């Protein structure tokens, strides 16, 4: 994909919103104030228009809360399956048909090349989903890899070509 150069204002705004958006009545006004205080004079309307434009140009996937699934009472696991080249599409269709499967990637891995996450309200439900996928795909084994400890969950990309680094 050809990369266009983002404008300095766009980089600053993206940097701010990927980090954190305050929970308040006018969150984008708060972002504008924050950026203005940091020396990038910008108004609420410009923040909104810029974000809308960045979203339309496919830079932004989603704006919203990041939940801690475990603290909401949900369980989640990473699963891996080994699928032959010609059955990847079919396998993806089966795996993706479950609402609890939120992420699924084809990876250059041997013997496991399909890696997906399963989130559900109980461990039993996760086992049921994984067993069903195994059966539907006729696989001997799907790896089930629960997390025992989280060391980091923080997506913060360094942006732009010139001084667009992202605060921690």
């Amino acid at each position, binding site marked *: *994909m050809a990369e266009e150069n983002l404008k300095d204002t766009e980089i600053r705004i*993206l940097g701010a*919103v*990927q*980090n*954190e*958006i305050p*929970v308040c*009545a006018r969150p*984008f*006004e708060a972002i504008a104030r924050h950026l203005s205080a940091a020396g990038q004079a910008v108004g609420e309307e410009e923040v*909104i228009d810029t974000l809308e434009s960045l*979203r339309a140009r*496919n*830079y*932004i*996937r*989603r*704006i*919203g*809360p*990041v*939940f*801690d699934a*475990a*603290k*909401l009472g*949900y369980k989640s696991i*990473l699963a891996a399956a080994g699928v032959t080249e010609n059955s990847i599409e079919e396998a*993806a269709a089966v*795996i*993706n048909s479950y*609402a609890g*499967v*939120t*992420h*699924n*990637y*084809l*990876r*250059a*891995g041997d013997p496991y090349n399909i890696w*997906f996450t399963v*989130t559900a309200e109980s461990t039993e439900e996760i086992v049921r989903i994984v067993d069903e996928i195994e059966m539907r795909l006729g696989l001997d*084994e799907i*790896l*089930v*890899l*629960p*997390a*025992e*400890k*989280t*060391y*980091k*969950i923080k*997506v*913060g*990309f*360094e942006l732009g070509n010139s001084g667009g680094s992202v605060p921690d």
Partner: protein
Amino acid sequence: MCKLTGLEKKIIFAISRGIEITARPFEKIARKVSVGEETVIGTLETLVNEKKIRRLCAVLRHRRLGYAANAMCVFDVSDENVDTAGEYAASFPEVSHCYRRTRAESWPYNLYAMVHSHTEAECAAVADKIASRSAAADYKLLYSVKELKKENMIYFNETDSPAPDKDVSHE
């Protein structure tokens, strides 16, 4: 720990797909749930304080931003070393997610780090440092070839709840 009120569940469900880019996004959520805007904001603040919400933020498309190389790096580290190795891996800005996971019989790896960079060589350099610092017995980089699905988890999607009237997920 995870006791949630009916109202909290409704608000979480209503906001699962994200907020709109508009001056007062929580007012829109409030209308879906038929409560006041301040109730939505108050509830979200509580959920943030209780760490049920990690944060409110934008999720960017990293490939669009030039992060073409994305690898899940897996390491087989001794149980004694794994916490130190995990903290070390987490210190790299290129690492977005890092977990210790249960080992499987046919898959001995116990440390997982998602590494994002502009080139595969840069990813490999990060994985290499983590592996040597943690004296990993073995490690692998599994580059992502294709995104097959990436969606928001819709929490508390009870059959009697009204479906969100508009999908604001920016897919």
